């Protein structure tokens, strides 16, 4: 029976409408409680900023894709080296660091829950193996369905129930959490060296369009009662003029759920581009955020780009091929049989480069022009836009117009003509930052009910105490203090234990993997369907029996069972 009292905390807890009250947080057995006895261990927060543990709803930290990034960039391991110390293994790497480096760095920044943005079902075991070493955050995995043959065939047949049955069985089999759709249809076309283009083109052989694949997967997602909504990486990522495709996708999104969004669109910065080629490339963040402002059924994450070296990695194989043709640097390309694709290349976002400078501005514009912070999450699509260690700088940019103006002076001078950023004077407050970095993310993922993203009684005791005294600083002017404060907590508390203190880990950690198991009736069990079984015999290199990830790969885990009615 372990209990802990965090005293004198300056608490911001948006889900419980607490905005900067000095209070004590009582913790018992990993949960927040009303009060604890005097014998409890005490942490004095000294009036410093105290938030629910950070939640990252889109990041790439574990799995085959990240690991390929590691093999192909040994030079990345020259940065970010850390020696072994009690409770910490030696680490190295910056944009594709070791698993321990990721978990330590997230913990140092006060994050306690992270979602891996893209797990190919066929390669799920690797993701879970790495998850078990990502010891300081609870982990969840979005599971890729964008080029799934069975799904596309069921869509072609117009059989929604079957789509739901396939998705439901697959999620439970691979211990996935959400439905990820990366460049729908495009990843299958990539198997033939092609891309799909926009949402009304037909996928070769299957005869279905991205719009249809998405419509069906959104509805199947709701039919399965999944905690999270469909999670979409829209077609045409990174192409000038792609905002039209983004707007049409948004326009079509239905509103089917009253607890959360029906569609989560990820790294929207990469999808808000105007112009028709690189020469007239410009921001269309205004149109995209205008649409978002009138579509409460959609939530997005920024996909903020920050300057410096990083690695891009995505299931979007054809997009990475385009990037490779642009940079002529190293490139990894992968076709995941019957399911999806992937590509990886290292990049360097430069302030001198006009396109990169515009990309940097667009991410910030999206966050500043989205009226409701619950609809826009703070993320960099780690490591695609920048490694997540840049979050404190992103926070400061959103809170301080002065900081933005100073940064604008350092970027390509032609940027101002192509973006809206210089005209935006909005400065987000700490409550909005808390929404964008934890509360909204937990809500969007549908994990508030299992105790994430808030500090109410019964919630998981995941707490971050930052060395920031909100009453003593003006974030608009003291942006450096915001950056420093968010870079390293005084304490990160996970499930009721202090797990890191001023950047040093205090325990080896013991995370949980959160996954879903939709309850599907015997007659809709797709794994008993003769045609589905035949697909494994004829096309997959693994058998149906070897495909599911056994529970022993998960160590501690939280299974969310859902009622489906199918």
């Amino acid at each position, binding site marked *: 029976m372990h209990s802990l009292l965090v005293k004198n905390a300056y608490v911001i807890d948006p889900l419980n409408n607490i905005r900067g009250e000095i209070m004590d947080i009582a913790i018992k057995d990993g949960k927040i409680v009303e009060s604890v006895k005097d014998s409890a261990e005490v942490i004095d927060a000294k009036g410093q900023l105290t938030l629910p543990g950070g939640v990252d709803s889109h990041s790439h930290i574990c799995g085959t894709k990240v690991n390929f990034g590691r093999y*192909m*960039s*040994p*030079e*990345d391991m*020259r940065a970010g080296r850390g020696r072994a110390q009690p409770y910490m293994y030696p680490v190295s790497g910056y944009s594709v660091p070791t698993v321990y480096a990721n978990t330590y760095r997230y913990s140092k920044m006060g994050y306690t829950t992270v979602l891996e943005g893209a797990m190919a079902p066929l390669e799920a075991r690797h993701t879970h193996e790495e998850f078990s070493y990502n010891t300081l955050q609870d982990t969840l995995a979005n599971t890729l369905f964008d080029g799934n043959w069975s799904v596309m065939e069921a869509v072609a047949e117009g059989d929604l129930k079957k789509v739901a049955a396939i998705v439901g069985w697959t999620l439970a089999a691979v211990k996935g959490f959400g439905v990820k759709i990366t460049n729908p249809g495009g990843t299958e076309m990539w198997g033939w060296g092609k891309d799909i283009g926009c949402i009304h083109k037909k996928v070769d052989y299957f005869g279905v369009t991205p719009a249809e694949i998405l419509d069906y997967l959104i509805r199947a997602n709701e039919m399965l009662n999944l905690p999270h909504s469909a999670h979409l990486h829209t077609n045409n990522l990174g192409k000038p003029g792609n905002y039209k495709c983004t707007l049409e996708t948004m326009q079509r999104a239905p509103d089917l759920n009253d607890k959360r969004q029906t569609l989560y669109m990820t790294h929207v910065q990469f999808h808000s581009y105007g112009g028709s080629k690189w020469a007239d490339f410009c921001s269309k963040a205004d149109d995209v955020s205008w649409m978002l402002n009138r579509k409460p059924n959609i939530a997005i994450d920024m996909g903020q780009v920050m300057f410096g070296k990083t690695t891009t990695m995505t299931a979007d194989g054809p997009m990475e091929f385009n990037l490779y043709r642009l940079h*002529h640097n190293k490139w990894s390309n992968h076709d995941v049989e019957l399911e999806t694709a992937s590509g990886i290349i290292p990049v360097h976002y430069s302030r001198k480069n006009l396109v990169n400078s515009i990309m940097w501005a667009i991410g910030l514009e999206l966050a500043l022009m989205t009226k409701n912070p619950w609809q826009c999450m703070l993320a960099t699509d780690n490591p695609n836009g920048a490694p997540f260690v840049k979050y404190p700088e992103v926070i400061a940019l959103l809170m301080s117009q002065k900081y933005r103006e100073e940064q604008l002076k350092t970027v390509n001078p032609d940027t101002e003509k192509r973006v809206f950023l210089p005209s935006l004077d909005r400065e987000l407050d700490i409550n909005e930052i808390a929404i964008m970095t934890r509360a909204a993310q937990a809500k969007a993922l549908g994990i508030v009910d299992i105790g994430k993203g808030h500090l109410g009684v019964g919630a998981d005791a995941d707490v971050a105490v930052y060395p920031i005294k909100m009453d003593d600083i003006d974030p608009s002017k003291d942006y450096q203090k915001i950056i420093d404060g968010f870079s390293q907590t005084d304490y990160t508390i996970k499930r009721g234990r202090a797990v890191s203190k001023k950047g040093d880990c205090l325990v080896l950690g013991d995370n949980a993997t959160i996954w879903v198991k939709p309850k599907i009736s015997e007659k809709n069990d797709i794994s008993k369907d003769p045609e589905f079984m035949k697909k494994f015999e004829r096309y997959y290199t693994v058998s149906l029996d070897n495909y599911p990830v056994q529970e022993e790969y998960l160590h501690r885990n939280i299974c969310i069972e859902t009622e489906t009615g199918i």
Partner: protein
Amino acid sequence: MKITLAIKKRDNPYIPIEAEAITTKTFLEKKPEDISVWYGNSEQKLTEIFDVRVEGDAKSEDEVTIIMSGNCSAVKRVGEYMNGGIIEIEGNIGHHCGNFMSGGLIEIRGNAESWLGREMRGGKIICHGDAQNYCGSGYRGEKKGMTGGTIEVMGSAGDFTAETLAGGEVIIRGNTGNLAGAEMIDGTLKIYGDAHLPCANMKGGTCHVYGTAYNVLPTFEYKGLIKAGDQASQMHMFNGDIANRNAKGTLYAAKYEFFK
């Protein structure tokens, strides 16, 4: 200032010694008893591993000479980031000797292990014996390896000699293994013996092979016999590697065989 480092007898001579502390600058700033090296997984005083003798004074690195004797083939990173002065190694030396050095001279009487002068910026390394793999190259994944200075190996060198060479000069008096000058972008590589698969994927710079260049890739464009290099006879000239856009590299070979 003259420092003599005689390596002591060890129970296990294969345990690596990480000795980036052995550079001219360290001895200018610290007393020998305050310098430490890593012996396997334990940090030890330099004086535990070597018999150290210091004679005279110095005001700058240029006035420091370090003489190392005994079998130093497990002593790594000697002369890392060296800026001036002299290191003389009487026998063999371990991996990564002269990493990132930018000035001064390292002279090795024996053989050098792999990564001799990796990512060197300036100064000179002379190795009288053989050098192993990756002599004068960049480290793994690095696009830009050595950018300045000179490495001269009197014997032969291993595979990937001068990989990603971006400046300076690498001279191998003997043969090289596979892929010498691979990915080179600038600078000069001279091989007085034979080379295999030389300059694969080069984008710039010049390579001379005075022996036979074996397995020249078909992506090298033959330009004819030309008077080049420092020997009397004419040499075969190639442009490459045209697998790259705007490849500006030049390969000269006294004799050659295309890859079959």
